[in-house]
């Protein structure tokens, strides 16, 4: 047999297949859809948003948002909520017209909105301006929205097996045995509250609680993306939800955003991260960009240029040398870099002697803390700014005590570190030199929070221990829906949130705007007092406020020196 015959006889089908394969690849190649970059409002976006069939719709709507006032928007409709009583009314171009067909629902007739006071819920410091509504709400204005309902998804394990649970266990908090039913009951109760008290323009929140495939604990370390994607698909395409209020992990929030579902909950991600997922991702926690701006200005204002008066041992009174420690995650590092930039811009980065990272890997945290602490000692660090999670801080403070090293610890208010329960598990001697920034409000005794009160206003039984977290998640959504007006879309939601007037309450000041998708607009100063009793659990150890509860806008700290329990 000739070599040629042999070749074709031996590999004929393969050659044929390869030829077809190549021909197909050349003649009918698979096509990528148009790749567009969605610029965040006011923030640079480097994430290429894609334009699938859904994205095309969204893009079109986005264009509309950019050019036209959102129908139903109280401000756009000429309503002055602050005026109280009857305000103007929407014109013919209002909600119903803008929203187009889709199901009708609500009352008949043209939509009419009017202001009715400064607060939708009297006594609720975060309540949006009061609005009354009548007429047609436009029906199905978007996915998950009908004339009567707004579908909201809740992945139950986001709360039952989620961060709250993990942190509680780590913190050693005594929590009652709660099963998912308690959480479902609490969420339903809160939903009932918001449906009753907020203006949803003839619609009701329709909660769909589902048991997801995702693993929340895996997602907190960046894994579990398969499950998160599957859950996001379920929310977007099966439940057809407008929003999800259980996006307590960045992985799940990211998946929901990619499916264009409004989501609430991503904790401590960066402003860029949220902007890249606009208008979908929102957070009741401060974004880490805000955190670093606040902490950087705190350092620049109150600490820079003065000796480390609150440090202990040999370090006390030495010229300040500061170190920043943060997890290796990309968004945390973005924030760290931003913080350093702020200090440099202010000409106050001179004391920054060390910036170091650690991996969010629980088994290796102790050895990482070991090395980190020696680095701190070696560089003569007097002041540690640790944007760390509670576990790493546990190891680090204990290691500091073991090594007889007592620097100042600047509290950054991330990852619940400014919660009394967490403070109580940190090494007492070391953490008694902790002071800094907290975005949370003063610790409130159990049963006095807004969430608890809201729940009890509609139900008589006891809610979940996590009622405040659940309330904040839902509150954010409810604010956005009310502020969006009758024509509810993710874009009108964003616009509504931007129009939400800043409100201050026990959790600080909330406000949103272009590039700002998280709540915190101000912070307060705290220090750790190991001897003080906590209002949370009556155990020794609590954060105290040297300024009697005063909150300060981001970047505007009074120059008075900080205090610490260790003196």
């Amino acid at each position, binding site marked *: 047999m000739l070599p040629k015959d042999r070749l074709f006889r*031996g590999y004929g089908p*393969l050659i044929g297949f390869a030829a077809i394969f190549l021909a197909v690849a050349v003649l009918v190649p*698979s096509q990528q859809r148009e790749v567009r970059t969605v610029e965040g409002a006011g923030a640079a976006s480097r994430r290429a948003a894609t334009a699938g069939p859904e994205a095309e719709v969204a893009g079109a709507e986005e264009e509309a948002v950019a050019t036209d006032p959102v129908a139903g928007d109280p401000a756009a409709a000429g309503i002055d909520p602050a005026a109280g009583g009857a305000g103007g009314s929407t014109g013919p171009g209002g909600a119903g017209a803008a929203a187009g067909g889709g199901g009708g629902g609500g009352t008949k007739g043209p939509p009419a909105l009017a202001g009715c006071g400064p607060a939708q819920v009297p006594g609720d410091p975060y309540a949006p301006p009061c609005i009354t509504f009548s007429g047609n709400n436009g029906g199905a204005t978007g996915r998950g929205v009908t004339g009567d309902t707004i579908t909201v998804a809740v992945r139950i394990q986001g709360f039952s097996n989620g961060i709250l649970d993990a942190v509680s*266990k780590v913190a050693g908090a005594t929590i009652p045995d709660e099963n998912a039913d308690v959480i479902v009951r609490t969420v339903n109760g809160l939903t009932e509250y918001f449906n009753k008290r907020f203006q949803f323009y003839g619609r009701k929140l329709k909660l769909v609680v589902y048991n997801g495939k995702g693993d929340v604990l895996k997602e907190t370390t960046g894994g579990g993306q398969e499950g998160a994607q599957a859950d996001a698909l379920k929310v977007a*395409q099966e439940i057809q939800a407008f929003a999800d209020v259980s996006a307590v992990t960045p992985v799940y929030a990211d998946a929901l955003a990619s499916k264009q579902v409004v989501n609430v909950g991503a904790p401590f991600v960066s402003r860029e991260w949220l902007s890249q997922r606009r208008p979908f991702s929102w957070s009741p926690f401060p974004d880490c960009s805000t955190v670093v701006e606040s902490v950087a200005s705190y350092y620049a204002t109150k600490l820079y240029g003065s000796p480390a008066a609150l440090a202990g041992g040999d370090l006390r009174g030495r010229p300040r040398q500061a170190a920043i420690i943060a997890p290796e995650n990309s968004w945390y590092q973005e924030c760290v870099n931003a913080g350093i930039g702020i200090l440099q811009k202010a000409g106050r980065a001179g004391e920054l002697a060390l910036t170091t990272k*650690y991996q969010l890997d629980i*088994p290796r945290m102790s050895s*990482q803390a070991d*090395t980190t602490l020696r680095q701190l000692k070696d560089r003569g660090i007097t002041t540690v700014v640790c944007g760390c999670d509670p576990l790493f801080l546990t190891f680090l403070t204990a290691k500091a005590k*073991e090594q007889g090293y007592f620097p100042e610890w600047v509290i950054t208010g991330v990852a619940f570190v400014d919660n009394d329960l967490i403070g109580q598990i940190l090494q007492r001697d070391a953490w008694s030199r902790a002071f800094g920034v907290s975005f949370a409000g003063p610790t409130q005794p159990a049963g006095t929070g807004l969430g608890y009160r809201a729940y009890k206003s509609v139900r008589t039984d006891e809610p979940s221990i996590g009622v405040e977290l659940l309330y904040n998640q839902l509150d954010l959504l409810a604010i956005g829906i009310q502020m969006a007006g009758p024509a509810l879309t993710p874009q009108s939601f964003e616009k509504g949130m931007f129009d939400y007037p800043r409100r201050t309450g026990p959790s600080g000041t909330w406000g949103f705007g272009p590039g700002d998708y998280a709540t915190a607009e101000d912070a307060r100063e705290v220090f750790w007092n190991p001897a003080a009793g906590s209002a949370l659990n009556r155990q020794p150890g609590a954060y105290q406020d040297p300024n009697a509860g005063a909150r300060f806008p981001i970047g505007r700290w009074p120059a008075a020196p900080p205090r610490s329990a260790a003196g």
Partner: protein
Amino acid sequence: MERITASPAGRWGLATVALLAAWAVAAAVLPNGAPPGEVLAGAILGSATGLTAVGLILIWRASRVINFANGAMAGLAGLVAVHLFLSWGWPYPVTLVVAPLLGLGVGALVEFTVVRRFADAPRLVLTVATIGVAQVLGGVELLIPERVFGARGLVLGAYDTPLSSLSFEVGPALITGNHLLCVAVVPVVVAVLGWFLRRSLAGTAVRAAAENTERARLLGIPVRRLTTTVWAIAGALAALTFVLQAPFLGASPSAAAGPAVLLPALAAAIVARMEKLTVAFAAAVVLGVVQELVRWNADTPALVDVVVLVVILVALLTDRAAKSRAHDADGGWRDADLVRALDPAVAALRSVRAARAAGLVVLVAAAVLVPLWLAPGDAFSVSVVAVWAMVAVSLVVLTGWAGQISLGQFAIVGVGAIVAGNLLTRWNVDLFVTLFVATAAGALVAVLLGVPALRIRGPFLAVVTLAFAVVLDGYVLNPNVFPELIPESLTRPLLWGRVDLADERAMLWCCLAALALVIALARGVRRSRSGRLLIAARDNRKAAEAAAVPTRWATLSGFVFSGAIAGLAGGLHVLLLQGVRAGSYQPVMSVEVFSGATIGGLGSLGGASVGAALLRGGQDLDATIRLVGAGVGVLVVLWVLPAGLAGLAARARDAVARRLATRAGPATAAPGDDTPAIPSPEVGPVPTGPPAFVGEVPAGDWRPPVPALAARGVDVSYGQLQVLFGVDLEVGDGEVVALLGTNGAGKSTLLRAVAGLSPCRGEVSLRGERIDDLSPERIVRSGVALMPGGRALFPTLTVADHLRLATWTFRTDTSRIRDDLEDVDRLFPVLRERRNQLAGDLSGGEQQQLALACTLLLRPSVLLIDELSLGLSPLVVAALCDVVRRLNETGMTIVVVEQSVNVALTLAGRAVFMEKGQVRFEGPTQDLLERPDLLRSVFLAGDTAGNGDHTAGNGDGRADTADPDRPVVPIDLRELPPSAPAGGDGPVLVVEDLTKRFGGVEALSHVDLRVEPGEIVGLIGQNGAGKTTLLDCISGFHRSDHGRILLRGTDVTEWAPFERARGRLGRTFQEARLFPSLTVLETLAVACERTVENRSLVADATRQPASYLAEAVTLRRAAELVRLLGLGRYEHTPTSALSTGTRRIVELGCLLAEDPVVMLLDEPSAGVAQKETEALGPLLRRIRDHTGAALVVIEHDMPLLAGLCGRLVAMELGQVLVEGPPADVLAHPAVVAAYLGTDAAAIHRSGTAFST
């Protein structure tokens, strides 16, 4: 320098100097230097890691498993001890003692409750079981602080102890008494353990049990108890590590720790090749320092993982090959269970074919239709499951077939995903081209990881891949390190401009199609040459190379294929996730998919993919499964189904197929029923009553004496295969009974059953006391000792170690030990000279003597000897026969399995002859000679009978001469295709001045040998004379130190074994292991390697004509050989299920398939029944006549050699003693004195000359 490196102290000194120099360089070069405080801190951390490494090695050596539960064992016991101090205020020193004690308990408990249950399971299964154990213990650990001690929080930071006040500073590090305690205690513990393993009797027993469990049990060593002890020690070590570190490192729950946390310890263990504790400890200390310096100097924490990976790779790449043949053994690693294919005869039934076709149709229909009903989220999840199934298929190739473990398969998936993601997002490359490139990328990574791991046999790929998985997750997919590399977001493309993959259903179809393609390709590989070679290389590297198989390349091609599948899976996975992000490919995913595939059954494509799919899908279905899926659930599933789901499915399949086969009629063999069948009715049961040789006794008056040993109605099955059928055997007190029979009759199995190694039904009693329910150890203590044939030693233990071990049952009786060892020295003087030599380096005869010596040290009252003369020179056989006779004279009862009736005649007055699992004759040995119906060649007789009377097969083209109840089919080599001419005029083989040294010993000394075409040369010589070493040098398995080898005029001295085999040099081996997992047909097909026309994996996978046409030729040739050699009954039987003699026949077939010009035969009659041996000589001559090949034959059967060879070469002490015509050589006084001796039976092991 050579003098320095010769001694351990010199080597350690040199290493210390090198490390100091490295420190100096590091201090000068690194940006933040290498301050002493950091080095010290690293050394302290490293020493603790070293203790973990030691624990891992201990478990490896005891159970051949990587213990992923090590951290959890530490956590459970250590945490309790820490809380006793912190919460309950116990004195610190007390808790330091309590921790290892608790660890002992935890370790023992784990062994007793879990490990022991998996004693007979493949090691892969036990490996996965340890992951489950880790989950269970981790869960318990979580409860301890609060439930037991009322403590808050699970995480403990560093804390003060009474030793904390003792402190001094070294640079930034404050060294406290806690650090010093760690530094002080750990080396002592390691030294004590090192001593324990190397010097103590129990430690030696542990090493022995790890190498050869059965033999250890036969020496009375309580293997189970020892294994429990080792696990207990490992638990104590783990707890000690925990409690020593806790004061300065704190503690975190082990439940959160994946297998990656063991990586530094595993790296250290690898440096020590899972053997030397001190080396592992030193490596861990150095690694600890390196890690600390990297952390100190680098900005990226994950760089530490990169360093660990580099250390592992360098350790593997710089590791030298084993220095002696003692380390050639695989150490008892058991791979995935075999799931045997359906018997072809059954598979060919119309009903079975119809059922298969229907099944396929249902599957395809389901794949097409089910997605239509699925919701998008569910469709997505099923797509993910399909991708996981693809990864499981890649694991079947890598682990199930190539025998290598990957704990980082998802990292290769990640590489494929990164490549595909970048191609799609950056360059908008066509999807299929993208998937192709991703596939290639996966293959490339697999090769890069596989090459270093392939250098040494062991679990090293598992560690390399695990390290790679950690690096990919923490470093490569780190946006701070490679921000541009990570395609975080992509859109699914439109396929052919119209199929929108954004639709989850379309994506699912795409994934299912890819899965189907992958399974089809893998099936293509398994069913053709590539798959065969992969398994052959795994099962028996030497035999494969001798068959011209380039084993490294074969295994590497398996890596390539496996990596390619994983890469393709990555290409699809990135489409599913629509991007790759940090955390997309966490190491735990690799462990989960491995667990799933193991649950499914790594020997089966379907089983593994279903297992992985179920594990992944189960996690999606239910939160409880998600929590326990990789832990408790896995443990429970494996407990119930140790062979995995595939085993269960195979059992169900066989049951159904058996029913179908029964319905189809007797022509069809039942599946699994391919070893000795139920005997034909005419054989009938063995008559009861007095044996024939006691003479006429009235039946009513006869009262049999209580026999020393009695077996009644013994049935033995191996799995579904019944081997013994109601065997009865009685041996009187002080009697010697020869157990004879055809090959595969069940003689060895009967002895194993008596010794307690093979579970049996029926009754076995010793002097009237039942012993069939006793363990082998207790049977030994009751006075029954078995000297097994074949693997009777522990290759890496010295002769002295063996003799010490044999005294285990009376280890406290020093005077008896002294006396017995003196007896051994008298009986076996050669063993005294070899006292410090490794058993694996002894010659065959010396090994046999050592085995017998060990057995005799047990002072049995009943001695069972399996193959006394196997592989021994006449002089040694004579000596051993003499020993047996003398033992018998002392009153010892002896049962000896012997192939040679001639030898048996001189030993035993009574013989028992077995055939097909039943006793066919019992009476005076001499009478057996009058029974040609029994004493006949089953396989080869036709050849001795001449060439006539060629009976056809059984009608279906398959001869069935293995069945003694059927007509014998003679072997007619004329039916074989003519051999290729040898070419050339001169000698086909020339060995010039060949010298080979092992250590300082010259095994071969300036040997010259010339072999002419067609010549048959016999090699004789005392055991240890260098005969096998000469063959090993000629065939390339040993590199000669001097001299050269010419094959057909070409210098092949530097050629690899497979290259020499391709140059037509054939080789058989003493032990005839063949390829245990391959069937006879496949084994013969492997032997056709030299002449196969297609060697392309791609062609095999895609079933190209080049593959199936070549395959048809190969299989036709193999089938022809099966028919000619009368192996039809065994055609589809794995060779592991064959008796030694049957394997010899297969081995001969392999030689015929290889068609060499020179055949090197190493004891071809070893383990072959005498009548087969008598038929062997003429057959070999005819093979020579037919092929024209020259034969070099090592043999101890003189009649066989004398009748076969034209020339004999006698060797002594590595040199040629004398050569010439057989008669002259055998009459040479030096040969008689050094080799033959004067025992006629030992010399005339076969033939009728002696007996007549």
